[in-house]
């Protein structure tokens, strides 16, 4: 058992964070070096574990924590999926954030908590039992709060207060669910097929209630209706934080928790026999449509993206709630695909805001001619969100559709179709306006003169383009074994084999 790689994956960002806290504000170069070195180290560790898992190695780290509940870290196939996503996107976001925050105050504090945030996310991915999961789940809440209120404006503080109220409330529900569940069946460790003792642990109504409690606890972070109210307000955070929050850290932690809950705590078969999957699917479907409708009405670009996140994250939950391997594949692969697409979109939004001061959809007219690369990246990701081939988003929706048919839930297909139309309705006008509308008068580069290029700085553009490339690559190369789809198919086969 190789425990070192696990520990190093967690420690790389943890110690980087602690070190950065101690650095004075002005030592920019040292801070940047630590940030990048830690991000690369984490990526290398995760790559090492991916390779090792391929060779049949097992990774587990067990330390005493609570009586009966160890501090348990594991790198199983499901955890590795989320870990890889976190490690890759952390690297992107770190580079981006270094460029984005150049010259702004309190950078040591920012990068310190940023690293803690990633530590918590990776910890959530690795957690091997409910107690460890809860530990990192709450750490994530706390590490993100200073990032949300980073600017210290009254708006930021109000957004932060709302964020805390929702997430700490969710944490309390989760804790109640965990303790309740463990009082019935003892310590719960994550294992495909779920806890065996649960199948005959008595009253199905109690079990269903506990399931609802746990889903509610995770649903706050996953922004499931009606617990999504914090997300648009958390948009006051700086762009790299929004990107990380929406792509990997907070919302994904919730979605990932629901995945663990369904497949590895209750087990998909037990969950199906309890009859809790259909209500979950209905809730997810409703959230998908609600998020899309609300996104239509937003003029603030980041808020439109936020509601789009509300909608898109529920695709993951929907896939999980569909009984059958195809739905599982669709949901899990969207965990990765949504992350990579949404981070591209938020990077682009940050580029627009930072370079041209554009915050609103209505101000985007003609921006494609001034910032062609950023707009190209935005286009790729937006088309992916709509679900057009050959982008990554198409693969997710294709499998979700197959999953719906497999589970005999035809209405889900209608939801998917309607949601795609809505996605198109709130993304295509942006694309059209950005590429084809004339620039407003008075700005350099109106139709009469040649457009003035004003592209974002390389530190901002690099990660944006890299993420956009991945959106394309994950769609085009979906058939290969090392694509997210290939890995997810492997997880699905584990989840459904007895």
């Amino acid at each position: 058992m190789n425990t070192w790689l696990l520990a190093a994956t967690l420690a790389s960002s943890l110690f980087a964070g602690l070190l950065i806290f101690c650095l004075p504000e002005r030592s920019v170069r040292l801070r940047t070096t630590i940030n990048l070195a830690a991000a690369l180290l984490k990526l290398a560790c995760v790559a090492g574990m991916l390779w090792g898992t391929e060779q049949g190695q097992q990774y587990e780290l067990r330390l005493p924590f609570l009586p009966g509940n160890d501090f348990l870290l594991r790198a199983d196939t499901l955890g590795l999926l989320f870990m890889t996503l976190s490690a890759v996107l952390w690297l992107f976001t770190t580079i981006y954030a270094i460029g984005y925050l150049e010259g702004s105050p309190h950078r040591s504090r920012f990068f310190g908590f940023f690293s803690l945030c990633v530590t918590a996310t990776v910890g959530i991915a690795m957690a091997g039992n409910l107690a460890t999961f809860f530990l990192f789940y709450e750490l994530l809440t706390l590490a993100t709060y200073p990032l949300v209120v980073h600017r210290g404006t009254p708006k930021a503080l109000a957004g932060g207060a709302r964020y805390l109220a929702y997430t700490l409330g969710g944490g309390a529900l989760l804790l109640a669910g965990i303790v309740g569940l463990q009082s019935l069946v003892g310590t719960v460790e994550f294992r495909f097929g779920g806890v065996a003792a649960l199948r005959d642990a008595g009253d199905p109504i109690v079990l269903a209630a506990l399931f609802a409690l746990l889903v509610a606890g995770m649903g706050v972070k996953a922004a499931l209706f009606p617990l999504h109210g914090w997300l648009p307000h958390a948009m006051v955070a700086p762009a790299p934080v929004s990107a990380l929050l929406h792509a990997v850290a907070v919302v994904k932690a919730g979605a990932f928790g629901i995945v663990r809950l369904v497949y590895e705590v209750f087990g998909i078969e037990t969950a199906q026999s309890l009859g809790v999957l259909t209500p979950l699917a209905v809730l997810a479907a409703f959230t998908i449509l609600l998020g899309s409708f609300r996104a239509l009405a937003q003029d603030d670009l980041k808020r439109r993206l936020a509601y789009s996140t509300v909608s898109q994250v529920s695709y993951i939950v929907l896939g999980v709630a569909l009984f059958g391997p195809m739905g599982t594949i669709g949901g899990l692969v969207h965990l990765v695909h949504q992350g990579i697409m949404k981070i591209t979109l938020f990077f682009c939004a940050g580029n627009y805001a930072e370079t041209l001061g554009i915050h609103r959809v209505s101000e985007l007219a003609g921006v494609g001619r001034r910032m062609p690369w950023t707009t190209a990246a935005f286009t790729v990701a937006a088309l992916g969100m709509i679900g057009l081939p050959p982008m990554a988003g198409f693969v997710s929706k294709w499998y979700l559709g197959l999953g719906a048919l497999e589970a005999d839930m035809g209405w889900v297909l209608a939801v998917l179709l309607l949601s795609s139309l809505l996605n198109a309705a709130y993304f295509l006008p942006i694309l059209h306006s950005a590429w084809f509308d004339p620039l407003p008068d008075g700005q350099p580069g109106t139709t009469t003169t040649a457009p003035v290029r004003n592209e974002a700085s390389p530190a901002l553009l690099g990660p944006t383009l890299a993420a956009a490339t991945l959106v394309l690559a994950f769609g085009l190369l979906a058939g290969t074994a090392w694509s997210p789809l290939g890995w997810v198919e492997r997880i699905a086969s584990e989840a459904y084999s007895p």
Partner: protein
Amino acid sequence: MTEVFLLPLAVLLPLLMACCVHVSADRFARPLQWVGALGMATLVLALVAHDAPMRTVLGGWEAPLGIELVADRLAKTLLVFTLLVYAAVLLYAEGYFAQSPIEARRFRPLAWLLWAACNAAFLSDDLFNLYVTLELAGLTAVGLAALSGHPKALAAALRYLLAALLAANLFLLGLALLYGSTGVLSLRMLAAAVEPGTASLLAFVLLVTALALKTALLPLHTWLPPAHGGAVTPVSALLSALVIKVSFVILLKLWLHFAPVLDLVVLGQGLAVMGALAVVWGSLLALRQQRLKMLVAYSTVAQVGYLFLPFAWLRPGTPAAAVAFDASVLQILGHGFAKAAMFLAAGVLLRAAGRDGLEGLQGAASRQPLAVFALALAGISLIGLPPSLGFSAKWSMLQAALLAGQWPWVLLLLTGSLLTAAYVFRAIRYAFLPAPDVSELRPVPALMSYSALLLAVLAAFGGLGTATLAAWLEIEIAGWPEALP
């Protein structure tokens, strides 16, 4: 053999130190304190290293006549706890009193005297001795609370003194009733000799009331906030971390001995209900405070409530009892470290800002990041988020409640956590606001922030050792009541 001098030394050394720092000149007092603290550390380490339970009788007089000192694992844990709190507070006090040597001169001997009283209480095993330590701790604490000599502090200290005297009289009454009917004072002998019945129960209720008053359980809490919030900061830390724990530990000891012989189910539920009310009411009051130290002081009222919840589940022979016992110890440690850290951090922030209002915290996140960090870490433990000691305490309480089949407590524990979060983040929120004016800032020795951080880290990450601690304490409660602790 070693216990013959090790155990009395745990009381005598701080007593001796109190005399020495009192008579020594200022410039010797400081090194002397470090020698003393080092001696205490060595002593406590030696006690903990001695794995077997230790027992000694002073002067060779066996109970029921003589004085017995007993160091079981609970007592050893508490000795270590006291040592850690003292290490941080003494360090902090050096910086805090640097400008006011008169206060320092008053603080040192009283602080050491209090240490002696705490250790004596944790090691004593007979009712009269416990009474004496309770008095000693109470009177020293009153002296400490009045240390600054401000009229407000004096008024609070007087109120505290009256509460302490009332408690002492109640305790003495209960003690006299029990002694009158049994003729013994040692807890073990008392538990064996006491006759179940209304008279014994009444005596026990008197003892419990006295201790609840000294621990400031709602509705007997009104003396606490002005005394704790109005004292100078190092004293606030000692009062909230240790002094109220002394009376609580005595109560816990009594409970463990008497629960098997007397019918305490109703009393236990009653104490827990009062605790629950304290959690809610104390938190609501904390939410309304405009001054940081008063907020922290009212938070103690709420946290004391948590201390009393486990009595609902501490019933002999039930599976929940062991978990409830762990919960009590964890809450003692968690609240002790966290509250001391919180007061120390608050002291740094207030001194830097030069005023006591919450708005004085504005901009502290960038000017006093260490102190804000300590405040936040301590807050995490009070809220009960993992991996803090406070979390482990709440986790154990949740478990005990469900083991006992009393699920409504789950609602209370979760509500309490959310209320705590509300008042903790209300304070921390101010720290993130932009600073009003930089020129107002006064310098604060970094040492003070570090000692606050030391305790805060213990509180916030101590929960990682929960399994180890529970295993270490297991023999104290396993098989209770057959094997009496």
